[in-house]
């Protein structure tokens, strides 16, 4: 009896479902689902033998649209015009199929239920996801279980999946938004019908999705190799002195466009966004190999590098090449920082941000540790001891540049 129950629990049902179960999967009551069928919201689905994945996907889409305030009449109109036939349905359809409860997933994967709960929260999926896990989720938990069994620390695993969740959700969000902006909207402007757009979107998804996953996998390997190399260099440097356990020594630069807020007033959001895009692109294209953009916030870029001297050289050279308004302003500081969840934290990071905020257009402002590490080819003009916001002690600041007359 237990075995029978166990088998039923272990495997979700993948064939057509009865109305009650379909309603549960879609997150709606059975009576509502029946009403929607009667109102003709599933014209392309044969529901005589039960609910297939595509029909359940459409039901989920309808639930989401109702939550966003669309009326039944609007949904009927959209379905009649073919606007709900598209890539979103295809994507959601993939999430339907074999389903597992948390208990089933724990049994299948070997991970404890509470660990799965922690992982789902770390990834950033809504807690409701725990009630509706797919076969690929279970497969993912099995990989996690293997990692834990192999001795990968649980805390490190949680931090890793948190970074994955943030990065991958950003990728997916960007893909959908960029396809919408660059494909969907131009088609709409050209007067293409909604139904035709839906067909186009369908094609794009089918063609591009299989291409994107290997690209992400390849880039992951490339970056992994890059950072493993840097870590090896970091170990060698730590052995030769400097660096505290649990912290990493990095140079941190913040760069933004001086007067950007005023610029948005003058030229409008679209043009200002284009200027920021070029600025971030120029930073990205010109950084030394060992430096990287950690994140961008509006027109501000945070850069980290294990090599303070080359980052300072880059900043000075970048300012020479940037003679068009709005001019960048750059602040650099280096020190020991805490690395958590793919980001850098601590007093030194805050200090670097404050230094940048003090820089004027076209300037590179740096702290004494940066001056100490810099090459002799640069000149540093001492600004003085400056009281930076949030810091109890004054910080000695220097203006970095090329020597006069050279």
């Amino acid at each position, binding site marked *: 009896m237990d075995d029978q129950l166990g088998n039923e629990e272990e495997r979700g049902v993948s064939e057509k479902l009865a109305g009650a179960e379909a309603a549960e999967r879609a997150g709606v009551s059975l009576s509502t689902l029946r009403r929607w069928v009667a109102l003709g919201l599933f014209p392309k689905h044969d529901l005589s033998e039960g609910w297939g994945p595509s029909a359940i996907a459409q039901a989920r889409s309808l639930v989401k649209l109702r939550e966003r305030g669309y009326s039944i009449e609007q949904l009927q109109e959209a379905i009649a015009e073919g606007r709900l036939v598209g890539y979103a349905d295809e994507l959601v359809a993939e999430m339907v199929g074999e389903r597992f409860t948390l208990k089933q997933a724990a049994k299948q994967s070997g991970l404890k239920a509470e660990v799965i709960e922690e992982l789902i929260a770390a990834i950033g999926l809504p807690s409701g996801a725990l009630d509706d896990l797919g076969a690929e989720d279970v497969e993912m938990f099995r990989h996690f279980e293997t990692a834990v069994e192999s001795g990968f620390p649980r805390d490190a695993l949680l931090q890793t999946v948190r970074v994955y969740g943030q990065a991958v959700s950003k990728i997916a969000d960007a893909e959908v938004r960029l396809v919408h902006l660059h494909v969907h909207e131009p088609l709409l402007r050209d007067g293409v019908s909604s139904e035709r757009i839906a067909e186009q979107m369908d094609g794009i998804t089918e063609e591009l999705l299989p291409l994107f996953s290997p690209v992400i996998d390849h880039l992951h390997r490339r970056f992994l190799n890059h950072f493993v190399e840097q870590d090896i260099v970091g170990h060698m440097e730590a052995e030769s002195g400097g660096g505290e356990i649990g912290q990493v020594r990095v140079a941190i630069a913040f760069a933004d466009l001086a007067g950007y807020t005023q610029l948005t007033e003058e030229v409008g959001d679209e043009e200002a966004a284009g200027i920021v895009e070029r600025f971030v*692109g*120029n930073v990205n*294209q*010109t*950084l*030394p*190999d060992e430096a990287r953009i950690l994140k961008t916030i509006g027109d501000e870029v945070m850069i980290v590098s294990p090599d303070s001297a*080359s980052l*300072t*050289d*880059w*900043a*000075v*050279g*970048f300012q*020479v*090449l*940037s*003679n*068009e308004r709005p001019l960048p302003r750059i602040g650099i500081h280096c020190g020991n920082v805490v690395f958590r969840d793919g980001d850098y934290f601590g007093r030194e990071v805050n200090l670097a941000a404050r230094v940048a905020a003090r820089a004027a257009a076209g300037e590179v402002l740096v702290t004494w540790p940066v001056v100490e590490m810099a*090459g002799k*080819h*640069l000149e540093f003009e001492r600004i003085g001891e400056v009281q930076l916001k949030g810091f109890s002690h004054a910080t000695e600041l220097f203006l970095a540049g*090329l020597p006069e007359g*050279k």
Partner: protein
Amino acid sequence: MTAQFESTEQFRAVIDRAMTLMSEDPVMGPKLRDADVPQRFEFDDMDLVVNARAARQGEHGNLYWEWTDDVDWEPKVKLTMSSEVANSYFQGKENVPVAIARRRIKAGGDVKSALALIPITKPVYGLYRSMLEADYPQLVVQ
């Protein structure tokens, strides 16, 4: 040990081939032509100057260049560097802003145009290295 050119003639021949690679590349060439940024490169150790611009109607390829300052156009960007830095740059081993800070490259004129050209010319690195590996292996920078 740095990779050095045997002679001025060899340097000129190699840079001519690098320019041809950029001019005739189906991706880089049209982009450089559209960017339309006349550039003057001075190679101070070789006492050589090359002026380059977008090809005009009827001229072959996408770029046109002459090894002289006696040209009928004004350069927009002026870059001065040694033959060693030029060779290193074309192999993707010279970061332009860093080289400017270290005075390995001196930049003048409308330098923001030079910034815009950096991503366009990146594909030349691989092509240039392949050319060196085939014909001038002693110039490959490790």
